């Protein structure tokens, strides 16, 4: 009886994917216990919720996901517009929408809604793709990204943009268009500079020379690179990182948790983390290549590449090769929303994998 229940419970679970995710979550708990033990209970609660969401999503078949794509996207877009008009301002940015009983951040929703929507769109246009379809896809992508950037929330905007771009790229955007866009982006960079907010420019300048303002804006990057560098090959040991324990690392349980891990477990710990991410991404790409429909393939590929983007942008930022943007380290940074979103993505991947044979049969 119990055995049957268990079987039923784990039926939609993809074991390799679950395994890699589980190991990453283990890393998260180890790092969190050192960086901020008082938040362990809350993070375990978040984790429980996220795993339930993953399990639920894992058994939703892709066709049903497909039907949800357009409504979710439209809802997200409306909410973003609502934010722009009536949103709450917190820390200088208008990101939150107060629904009376709870405050939500619609840009988070877009991280999943965007690939879902674009995958749905390309599925609809399958076999009759023209250049103008890409233009329309760009519009689908561009409007929410512009709204998020206006909030301003550069981190989320980049992630949503990346998610959408991955779908379009995997859908077969011609190389000459890609190269043309890249060239145009390079040419437009100076103009884009003027469109950035002051604090965003500051962050980019910081990257170029963090020591210029060591106690002000450069403090985050300097302290995190010191933490990483002083960790050495084997690290200082769990709970022994002076940068972490003496609170020199800012935001050490959220965006900068990688610095804590890196200081205490060194290059070896970083290698373990990179390998775990690589395995997770590899598994995701494999699932994408085996998926049954174009929608499933595009969605799986995009979600997997979003995991990569999170990880790369975060680690690049903390180690001082990318500007400081608010991107958490996937599965490891503290925070319920991000964890739920990520596990939702894992759930979708699992569902796609379980349903890979259905149509081909």
């Amino acid at each position: 009886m119990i055995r049957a229940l268990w079987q039923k419970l784990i039926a939609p679970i993809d074991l390799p994917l679950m395994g890699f995710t589980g190991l990453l979550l283990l890393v998260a708990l180890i790092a969190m216990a050192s960086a901020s033990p008082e938040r362990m209970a809350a993070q375990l609660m978040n984790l429980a919720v996220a795993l339930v969401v993953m399990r639920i999503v894992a058994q939703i078949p892709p066709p049903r996901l497909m039907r949800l794509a357009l409504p979710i996207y439209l809802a997200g877009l409306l909410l973003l517009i609502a934010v722009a008009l009536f949103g709450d301002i917190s820390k200088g940015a208008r990101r939150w929408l107060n629904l009376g009983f709870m405050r939500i951040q619609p840009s988070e929703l877009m991280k999943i809604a965007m690939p879902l929507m674009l995958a749905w769109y390309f599925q609809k246009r399958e076999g009759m793709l023209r250049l103008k379809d890409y233009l329309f896809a760009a519009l689908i992508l561009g409007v929410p990204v512009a709204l998020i950037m206006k909030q301003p929330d550069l981190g989320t905007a980049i992630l949503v943009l990346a998610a959408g771009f991955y779908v379009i790229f995997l859908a077969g955007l011609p190389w000459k268009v890609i190269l043309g866009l890249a060239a145009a982006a390079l040419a437009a960079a100076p103009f884009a500079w003027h469109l950035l907010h002051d604090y965003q420019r500051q962050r980019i300048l910081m990257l170029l020379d963090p020591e210029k303002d060591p106690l002000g804006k450069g403090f985050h990057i300097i302290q995190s690179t010191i933490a990483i560098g002083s960790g050495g090959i084997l690290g200082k040991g769990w709970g022994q990182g002076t940068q972490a324990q003496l609170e020199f690392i800012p935001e050490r349980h959220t965006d900068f948790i990688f610095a804590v891990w890196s200081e205490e477990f060194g290059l070896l710990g970083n290698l373990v983390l990179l390998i775990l991410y690589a395995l997770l991404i590899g598994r995701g790409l494999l699932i994408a290549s085996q998926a049954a429909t174009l929608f499933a393939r595009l969605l799986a590929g995009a979600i997997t590449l979003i995991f990569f983007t999170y990880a790369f942008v975060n680690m690049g930022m903390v180690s001082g090769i990318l500007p400081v943007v608010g991107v958490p380290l996937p599965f490891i940074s503290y925070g319920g929303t991000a964890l739920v979103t990520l596990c939702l993505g894992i759930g979708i991947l699992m569902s796609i994998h379980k349903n890979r044979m259905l149509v081909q049969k």
Partner: protein
Amino acid sequence: MEFKLPQEDLEQFNRRLAIAGGFVLVCFVLLFARFFWLQVIQHDYYKTRADDNRISLVPIVPNRGLIVDRHGVVLARNYSAYTLEITPSQVPDLEATIDALAEFITIEAKDRKRFKKLLEESKRFDSLPIRTRLSDEEVARFIARRYRFPGVEIKARLFRQYPKGAFASHVLGYIGRITERDLAKIEEREQEANYRGTEHFGKTGLEQHYEFELHGTTGFEQVEVDAAGRPVRTLARTAPIPGNNLTLTLDAKLQEIAEQAFGNRRGALVAIEPATGGILALVSVPNYDPNLFVDGIALVDWKELNESPDKPMVNRALNGAYPPGSTFKPFMALAALHTGKRRPEQAIADPGFFVFGNHTFRDDKKGGHGLVDMYKSIVVSCDTYYYQLANDMGIEAIAAFMGELGLGSKTGIDIEGEAEGVLPSPAWKKKRFKRPEQQKWYAGETISIGIGQGYNAYTPIQLAQAVATLANDGVMFRPHLVQYITDTKTGERRYIEPQPIKKLPWKQEHIDIIKRAMVGVNKEGTGARAFAGAEYVAAGKTGTAQVFSYKGVEHKTETMAAHLRDHALYIAFAPADKPKIALAILVENGGFGAQAAAPIARQVFDYYLLGKLPQGAAPADEAATESGE
């Protein structure tokens, strides 16, 4: 799904997927390279930076050395007290903060003014005291409200204390907060590291001269601090080594008697142990209270000290140069014997004046002293004898002899700021004046030099050194205040100057003639009244120095404005046959040396030689005993 995927599209998708996978790999390799750079290649650098972050060296200021007199009486010590301190850079509105503090802690107007002065002199991130010496109750009151005052702290600090207050202040000097000038001295000595955390520095007197002995060695505590600078734990500690203690040659009780003997008159006294050069008492009155300076002097107090017509901040014993008046005569007589210009029995008939060219130099006694030999010239202080002598010797010979005796040059006492005085000579004049006609030495100028007037100007310490050298039969010591320095670490005593600096080539018989005459002064001459009934034999010489020249006009001392009255001087040593103490006294505008200065010497000798304390005050005797010093 209603139709099958074209194989072509699937292949393209997989190709794109592979490209993405390749991109991921490249990015991860890039990250790994970055980690390798930071954690392997640059590891040492970042390790140091991390340690710099967390380890803070906190200096532990050593206890300043004590200053005690020759019998161990403490003259300068330290005590611990609570201060209320503000770090200006951490306080946005200083005025408002001080007002708020004043609601429950007494902060007077002078505290505010002093704080303002400190603020101007210091850096913004220094912690500056707004109130010192808080009572326990005030400490408790502040602690209860501490959360309201970021940047304000209670600190336990060591304070310098001069327990006897306004006593020997020109000897001890005082300490004050370190200024830019003090920093330059610290850098010159390469003591910057040792002065980390030190806030005070010797400003004058012994506190200044022996600053680097008294300071001690700063200890350090290696403290692990968190990002907010809060100490987490102590990693290592090097204890500070307290400053070395100074034991003076000074006798505090003697100093006290000497200071009191002046009453409220201005003046100086330097008493020296002839056999060692050790200073037994060094008085410059009025004194000031050095305690006022320790935590930054209040503006009112500073104004009062600085603007007082009595000039209490001037160390008269070292900085004041005065004409020696008749106290110069014994040295003139010795010079005459030494150079062979006079034999002791050679006598002159004194008409009461001496004519040189068309100028008449008068003796104070009308009609003169009659037949005067060397002995009598000193005992009755005959001016005419010395006018002639000076004229016969010539300025060069006088200057050479007096220069050897140390007059007109710094004695090298262990306190800063000594004046040189003026040893008149043609060479000096040439240097001193600019116009050619002023630069020439006129023979007539030599005459008044003989009685200690004219350009002559010496500091009391120079006179004391000269008389001590005479008492010591020509063996000269550098006067010094510190007998020995006790190294607090080893307990070892370092003695200062136990060796004489030179022996003057005087004949003992000449010295004895002068000494006998100086004994005569106190027995039957100008000092006889002051030394009536003394149980020891004291040798001395009185002196009266004109504040300015009266050009031969008759004047009555009693009727003159106080600040125009003559300075009273006295030099002496005792016992005459085996001198234990030699001294020079100056009473500014005191009138006659015999009346004003000699009685002070009597009190000092009575105490030092017999242990006798003075009977009440009233050293000045209004009735003039003698004229013509």
